[in-house]
């Protein structure tokens, strides 16, 4: 049963909550309590803006177990504007081709259900092409 692990990770998954290092000010995701840049303790929470760009990507037609319902889908390395690079699924692409450098923004979506009709539904971050905001 993976419920306890998913429950502990919910903040980082739902809302891109990571950490900021109080020593070198680097932003850290996923949170690990030790700064990977300077090696000091880093436990200060930091919520990422959710904006970033596509660094690289691949489209999966044969999805791993638990993700079959979503296939085909595109997974990308997204470079967040605060620095870290994370792996995430892209969504709402429609007919748009994915391009390196494409601006994307975080949305919280269904990742999968542990058992399609009866299990806990897992929600987490995905990225979609940036939407226009009037000003």
């Amino acid at each position: 049963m993976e419920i306890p692990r998913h429950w502990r990770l919910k903040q980082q998954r739902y809302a891109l909550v990571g950490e900021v290092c109080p020593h070198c000010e680097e932003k850290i995701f996923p949170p690990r309590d030790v700064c990977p840049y300077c090696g000091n303790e880093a436990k200060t929470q930091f919520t990422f803006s959710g904006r970033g760009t596509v660094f690289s990507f691949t489209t999966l037609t044969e999805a791993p177990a638990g993700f079959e319902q979503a296939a085909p889908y595109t997974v990308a390395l997204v470079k967040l504007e605060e620095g870290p690079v994370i792996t995430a699924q892209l969504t709402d692409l429609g007919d748009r081709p994915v391009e390196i450098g494409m601006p994307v923004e975080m949305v919280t979506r269904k990742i999968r259900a542990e058992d399609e009709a009866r299990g806990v539904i897992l929600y987490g971050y995905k990225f979609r092409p940036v939407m226009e905001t009037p000003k």
Partner: protein
Amino acid sequence: MTETFPQTTFAPLKPDRPVGIIGYGAYVPQYRLPASEVARIWKGGRAATPIKEKAVAGLDEDVATMAIEAARNALKRAGIPADHLRAVWVGSESHPYAVKPTSTIVAEAIGAVPHIQAADWEFACKAGTEALVASMGLVGSGMARYAMAIGADTAQGRPGDELEFTAASGAAAYIVGPAEEALAVIEASFSYVTDTPDFWRRPEQKFPMHGQRFTGEPAYFKHITEAAQHLMKATGTTAQDFRYAVFHQPNTKFPQRVASLLGFTPEQIKPGLLSPIIGNTYAAAALIGLAATLDVAQPGDRILVTSFGSGAGSDAFIIRVTEAITQRRGVAPTTQAYIARRVEIDYGTYVRFRGKLAS
């Protein structure tokens, strides 16, 4: 104090402490199923369709995810931290779980936990506006400074049923707070509720049943006109006192006709009449229509909003737009911006997205 009781039956709801909308946000998924596709599959292509097309949630979307995005947009416009909210209430008839609240998922995702009231509301298409009335009470009493009410649905119709033309997906979130911080003041509210079985779904049934023509006169038209007329009478207003009006919109014709019955012109309902292009978003319908209206309204404009939920009841609100709207509405995407990112799907894709394939 004591001489105000008992209140007259017809007094509008008005909190002691004036309240208003501090922030609002809409969400409409990008997929569109043209009504002609439903007609092609089920009516041999020959049917008068009640709308042009409807919005359909994608494979990775549900009431929780749509509510989260609408809530984030409302927080942006409110300009308050999420942990200032004292309530997150989600109204829907398509909550992802039968047992386990949607509201806790939304509250956690936006960062409003743990010092909040959270609950899911259920009253067919008026669950969201009922939560809005409750938010007025919570804030108006002084118990909370800010409360969030959300209406969201991923509505389903039985394949081939008339509802399949219109049953759509969307969400809208409203943050209620003190009137002096509001981008639109809620001047008064009034509800009209009876036991009228026009539409229902029993436990563990996937699709709802409805009373066919019974949904019209004794249900939709009766409840909306009663709620709206009482509210206008009690506040000494007429249709001419409003710049805009928004009504629950299960199709194109019902809101047009109820507007005309109440003395409103097609111009007054135009910005909020979205059912022709997004369908019936159930608990979100009147609230998304209001969001689209707030996107274009000017300071001083009055808006009459009246929801309808089967079973049955209507909540009516008189809303007055303030100067603050011009500063704050631009920080989140407009309702029309969501509607504009349109990806057309065929009936087969729709069946897959909405989980209508038996497995």
